[in-house]
């Protein structure tokens, strides 16, 4: 329960990002601010200070005050505000991708397990092939191919900088991890007496699928869901860290960790703060997921291979 509260706090904090940026920090975290100045303790100092040696320059450090709470990045942007916005992107991508994965996987797994025969064979083999891919390699392949030119399917055109692309990519990659247990479960549910009774009553297929089988498969999907959000956020941050996830002007926690790499030794907080937030978010989601699993399924039969992602 405590885990859920922490997660809710993180969500609320990221939702308040625009308020923080405009009212408190009074900056635009997406515009570079190389020659800007800021008033600290009554004196006006430049955001990017030239080094005494004359070589290069150092962004302002953490003030823990109203402006530049966590300091500035190399572009002179307020890191604290960027992290709040970044959290929003990370959470949106993570939750949306997890939702999409579970939706697609439930449909696919349900149909494969319930129909059997050739349909099942085709779906299962396809899932096996996607599953044979290391998660990052498939995601990298999809990202490099999609992020440059965007996706065009018929009249629909998705801009490369849209959050939709990382969502689609991550959702697609994880479908087999959810679809396989769902398929197995609907295969076994199909042979139960109540389903046979419904068949004997002459119930149409759609009714069988959604009224008889789906409700019995759903608990295992619900158990996977919080863990899936955690996995998706982790994958998103890794892809963004490799600069093939969320694209500029948008930023996610992974992007900010990556940008902070160049300042790691001078201004370590730029990288450390967003990474810490990723870790905390994943941790509370894992704790919450464990709780859901213990509550819904004491036997914990679905030991999903969720952590193969590295």
């Amino acid at each position, binding site marked *: 329960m405590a885990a859920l509260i922490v997660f809710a706090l993180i969500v609320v904090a990221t939702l308040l990002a625009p308020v923080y940026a405009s009212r408190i920090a009074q900056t635009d975290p997406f515009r570079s601010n190389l020659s800007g100045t800021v008033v600290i303790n009554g004196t006006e100092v430049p955001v990017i200070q030239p080094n005494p040696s004359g070589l290069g320059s150092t962004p302002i450090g953490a003030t823990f005050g109203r402006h530049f709470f966590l300091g500035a990045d190399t572009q002179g942007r307020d890191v604290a505000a960027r992290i709040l916005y970044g959290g929003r992107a990370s959470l949106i991508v993570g939750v949306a991708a997890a939702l999409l994965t579970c939706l697609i996987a439930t449909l696919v797994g349900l149909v494969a397990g319930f129909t059997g025969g050739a349909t099942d064979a085709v779906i299962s*083999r396809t899932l*096996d*092939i*996607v599953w*044979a*891919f*290391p*998660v*990052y*390699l*498939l995601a*990298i*392949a*999809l990202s*490099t*191919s*999609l992020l*440059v*030119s*965007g*996706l*065009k*399917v018929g009249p629909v*055109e998705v801009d490369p900088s849209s959050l939709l692309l990382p969502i689609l990519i991550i959702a697609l990659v994880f479908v087999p991890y959810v679809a396989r247990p769902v398929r197995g479960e609907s295969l076994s549910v199909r042979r139960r007496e109540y389903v046979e009774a419904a068949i004997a009553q002459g119930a149409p297929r759609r009714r069988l699928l959604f009224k008889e089988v789906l409700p019995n498969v759903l608990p295992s999907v619900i158990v996977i869901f919080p863990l899936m959000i*955690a996995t998706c956020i*982790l994958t998103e*941050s*890794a892809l963004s*860290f*490799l*600069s*093939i996830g969320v694209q500029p002007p948008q930023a996610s926690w*992974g992007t900010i*960790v990556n940008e902070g*790499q160049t300042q*790691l*030794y001078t201004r*370590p907080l730029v*990288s*450390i703060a967003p*990474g*810490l937030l*990723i*870790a*905390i978010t*994943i*941790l509370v989601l*894992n*704790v919450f997921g*464990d709780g859901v699993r213990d509550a819904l399924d004491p036997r*914990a039969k679905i*030991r999903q*291979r969720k*952590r*193969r*992602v*590295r």
Partner: protein
Amino acid sequence: MIGFALRRVVSMLMVLFALSVLVFLIFFATPGVDPARKMAGRNATPETLAAIRASFGLDRPLPIQYAKMMNRIVITRDIESYSNRGVRVIPEIMAAAPVTFSLVFGAAIIWIVASIAIGLLAASLRGTMWDPLLMAIALIGISIPVFWLGEVANLATQQRWHDTPLFSWVPPLGYTALSEDPVLWFKHLVIPWIVLSVLFVGFYARVLRSDLIESETEDYVRTARAKGLSERRVLVVHQLRASMITFVSLFGLDFAALVAGGALLVEVVFGLPGVGRLTYLSLSGLDLPVIMATVLYGAFFIVIASAVIDILYAWLDPRIRTS
């Protein structure tokens, strides 16, 4: 046995074929994706585009493009990088593979030893405060993003505490081959090994603990207790041995996935010139042949490794052959 091995090899070949087609389609036939445009840049004239298409054979029908590509990757092995004309990709991958293997092998040793120790400890201390504490630590290990942990490790060992006796032995980021200088090789890899293994220590310790606790109710455990064996002997000899089945099959897949390129993030953070870093470096230049070859290398490695594991299992356990 030979029949089983043959069937497994045939299915492996089919999966390899399907994988290569999938990779090819992702790079060359996704709607809206045009490799020639990537090479030419955003503001290329139609003539430039046509010239590039012709010179790379991109104007041919897809099946022919696929066949030519695979021929150059698998058979003649002379596919060249787009960005650095003249650099052959396959030898680059072969040169990078030992680095990745060194990294993964060392991490694997750490994660096997540490996770078995933690799993056993937690299971035997069940009911005390130590079990939940160990499991909480394991959960934290699972939740930390590996690239961030690597950066924090770099910050600590390369800068903040580099001048203290604790980390003064850590060499600058990079890699030295084992054959060149074994001591330096070891020093370069210790920190990456630990960082890479943290996630797996946490995950395997949790799996092992729950397996051990599940086997508590099994008949063979009761029999072992009835024989009058000590608790420690029951746990280590009987329960642990049975739990190793899950452990080993998980391990095979994870090890293969890491060698195949899953160690990419650790390689990037620590500047180790492995296969994953090769992929990463070709990402910014969109060097399609390199990305495609490394992705295929990874996928092939996993499929072949899992076929080998299956055949080994069937050899060890005759029951699997017929199922």
